[in-house]
């Protein structure tokens, strides 16, 4: 079992309503759970809780590895750094410097058009998303948490991402994905988050 959420709840202030309420989810190795839901329903909160970037109000999280792949719903990487340097730094942080080469290959597969020497501040929304996806998928991890991975991607890159995730699933990596799109639904279980509760989608 890669990851397990048991009775997970979150509210941001003591008397505020629960954004996530008594939520249970099991994510075995090599499985994918896609979370759908309206804007502001708590998808990003759920993913941040899962990555321990937010403190749980109550509940338990089991099996979160120390290092995992993570794509936040928004991020501003250092504008003056090049794509190559960015991937190299993150790969070294992860203790696997060789992963930067894999990261660069992933950016090529996803179609990062300006190339690895482009400064991050000059990248378009879609190209930045490709780079952020590359850093999340460049290492052999047991868990990847992707928040809106398809945002800004063109049709070709979306199809490539589908293939990449399928490859990682075959390697045993578990995925937790929040998205409005249905592109990844065929790869695993689909859930709907509404009023803080998670239900399996038909």
């Amino acid at each position, binding site marked *: 079992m890669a990851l397990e959420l048991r009775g997970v709840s979150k509210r*941001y202030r003591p008397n505020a309503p629960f954004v996530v309420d008594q939520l249970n989810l099991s994510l075995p190795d090599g499985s994918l759970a896609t979370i759908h839901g309206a804007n502001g329903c708590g998808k*990003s909160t759920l993913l*941040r809780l899962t*990555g321990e*970037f*937010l*403190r749980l109000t109550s509940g338990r999280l089991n099996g979160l590895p*120390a*290092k*995992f*792949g*993570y*794509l*936040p*719903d*928004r*991020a*501003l*990487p*250092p*504008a*003056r*750094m090049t794509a190559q*340097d960015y991937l190299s*730094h*993150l*790969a*070294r*942080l*992860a*203790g696997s410097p060789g992963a930067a080469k894999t990261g660069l290959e992933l950016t090529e597969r996803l179609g990062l058009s300006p190339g690895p020497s482009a400064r991050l501040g000059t990248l378009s929304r879609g190209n930045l998303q490709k780079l*952020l996806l590359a*850093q*999340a998928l460049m*290492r052999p991890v047991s868990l990847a*948490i992707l928040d809106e991975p398809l945002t800004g991607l063109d049709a070709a890159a979306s199809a490539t991402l589908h293939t990449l995730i399928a490859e990682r699933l075959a390697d045993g990596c578990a995925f937790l994905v929040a998205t409005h799109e249905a592109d990844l639904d065929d790869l695993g279980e689909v859930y709907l988050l509404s009023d803080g509760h998670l239900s399996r989608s038909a």
Partner: protein
Amino acid sequence: MAGLRYVLAIALRTQRWAPPAIVLVGLIAWAWFAPPLMLSATNFVALLLFALASWLGYATATAEDPGQEAIAVSNYGSYGRLALARWAAAFLLAAPFPLILLFGSYFWHAFTDRPTLAAVGAAGLLLLSTAACGAAIGALVGSLLPTRPAWAAALLFIAALGEAAPAIPPVGLGNPTLTPTGPEPLSQLILAIGLGLILAAAALTLASWWHRRARPGGSPEAGQHSS
């Protein structure tokens, strides 16, 4: 080491921290070289170093936007390690310049009061403790006020002024012990340096705890953070 390289790469490319840091480095140089050069110049320089280190601690703690910070943590394995790397980066950026001035002045016989090597070494240790403490206080303020640099600067300025008070470690407590013949009393200097390091450890621990509690890689206000 990878964390330190990462933080330095981010901080040195951001450069938001540079103008105040350049002013403080200039003030340190001015305070040091204002004649006659005596070991007592360390007193004022230590206060300026505290301000410099705390500003750099704040700057390195807030150089990334929350989303990028979460990416770094997911790669590095823990926020605590990243916080330590940030503190180390601030410390390494702040500490060398005053130490070069201090030991350079000693070895080039620029002091008019001819301090002993023991006295210069004691002053050096006090400066190191000051830089460590300042960087940690800056990191703490960075976790308390990540999106309010003006308030943070005001708070850090007050903290630096507070360091001038006689009993406050490490500067206020340690400065009076620096005499040209050696630290006097030695026990007070050791206490000042030790308390400075304890203060640094406490501030870093508190910064990590508070960060986890209040400013994780994405509270609802995370998008308002401007880096």
